[in-house]
């Protein structure tokens, strides 16, 4: 007895897609790049300082790394152009790269505020502008923004970061409404604490506090965030748009 392809979510055939993952060689980005490569997609990863490790370069032809300064429109445009040349139009964007400059508001300079907003929020704007015409023409696209549960919960010392990440949600939902009729979805993944370079700088005491507040009693691995991102990139997620998917061990329930 035959179940028709496309009838059931898990049986929907996956087309090989061209994916762009910013900050795609470290942390959550690296795990996402690796998972999507394993699923058979072509993945271009932007890097800032650190280059890709052997685990990614071993994928060969389907992997490509390109330098990108998210705070410069020309650099973003050049990175997207390089991906177009190598793989063709971007079909899935994972806007993952982010920065922090933590300090209490009383001590936060306007420069520190601007730098974080510029990289995390305006960077996503620049990326989206660069890839959207291609997605609209193709009548298929997936825009995935990596935010943080901090967007909804707030965190002391992270006013700039929280504002940038909360901004991404409003941004993504507006974009979702604009391009929904073109079969382009825009969704947000909101991780809780994850073991990456960003959390390595957090003090042991603060880390213990954070862990204690998580119902699941532990911090996520990058792979546990990559899975939900890959789901939103998949054919099976075609009717999901404007959603915020929290992946946080339960810390933000109700957000």
């Amino acid at each position, binding site marked *: 007895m035959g179940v028709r392809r496309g009838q059931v979510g898990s049986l929907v055939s996956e087309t090989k897609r061209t994916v762009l993952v910013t900050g795609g060689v470290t942390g959550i980005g690296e795990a996402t790049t690796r998972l999507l490569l394993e699923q058979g997609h072509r993945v271009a990863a932007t890097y800032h300082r650190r280059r890709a490790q052997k685990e990614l370069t071993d994928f060969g032809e389907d992997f490509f790394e390109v330098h990108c300064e998210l705070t410069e429109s020309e650099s973003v445009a050049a990175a997207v152009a390089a991906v177009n040349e190598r793989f063709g139009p971007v079909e899935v964007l994972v806007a993952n790269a982010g920065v922090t400059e933590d300090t209490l508001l009383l001590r936060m300079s306007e420069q520190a505020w601007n730098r974080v907003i510029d990289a995390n929020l305006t960077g996503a704007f620049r990326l989206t502008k660069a890839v959207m*015409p291609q997605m*609209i023409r193709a009548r298929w696209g997936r825009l995935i923004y990596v935010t943080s549960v901090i967007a909804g919960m707030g965190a002391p010392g992270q006013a700039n970061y929280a504002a940038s990440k909360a901004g991404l949600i409003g941004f993504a939902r507006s974009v979702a409404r*604009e*391009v929904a*009729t*073109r079969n382009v979805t825009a969704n947000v993944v909101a991780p809780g604490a994850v073991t990456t370079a960003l959390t390595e700088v957090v003090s042991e005491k603060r880390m213990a506090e954070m862990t204690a507040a998580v119902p699941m009693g532990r911090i996520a691995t990058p792979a546990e965030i990559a899975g939900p991102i890959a789901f939103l990139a998949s054919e099976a997620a075609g009717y999901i748009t404007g959603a915020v998917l929290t992946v946080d061990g339960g810390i933000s329930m109700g957000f």
Partner: protein
Amino acid sequence: MDDAQAFEQFKQCTVKVLGVSPEQVTMEASFAEDLDADSLDIVELVMELEDSFGIKVEESELEGVNTVGAAYELVKGKLA
């Protein structure tokens, strides 16, 4: 480029982006009413026209441009 050539090129862009038939692209045709175009369709058409004619259209210039005739006049005004 003479007027007939320019309008032919304009018509081709419109047919391509809006998926309408060439006969529908008349000077009097309204984008919203006759060609069933939404705001995103118009933006796509503008991008196509910019590429095709090598021109740049500012956001402010699009105000009140509701018909094929008005859009064509806008494009024509930018051709050297």
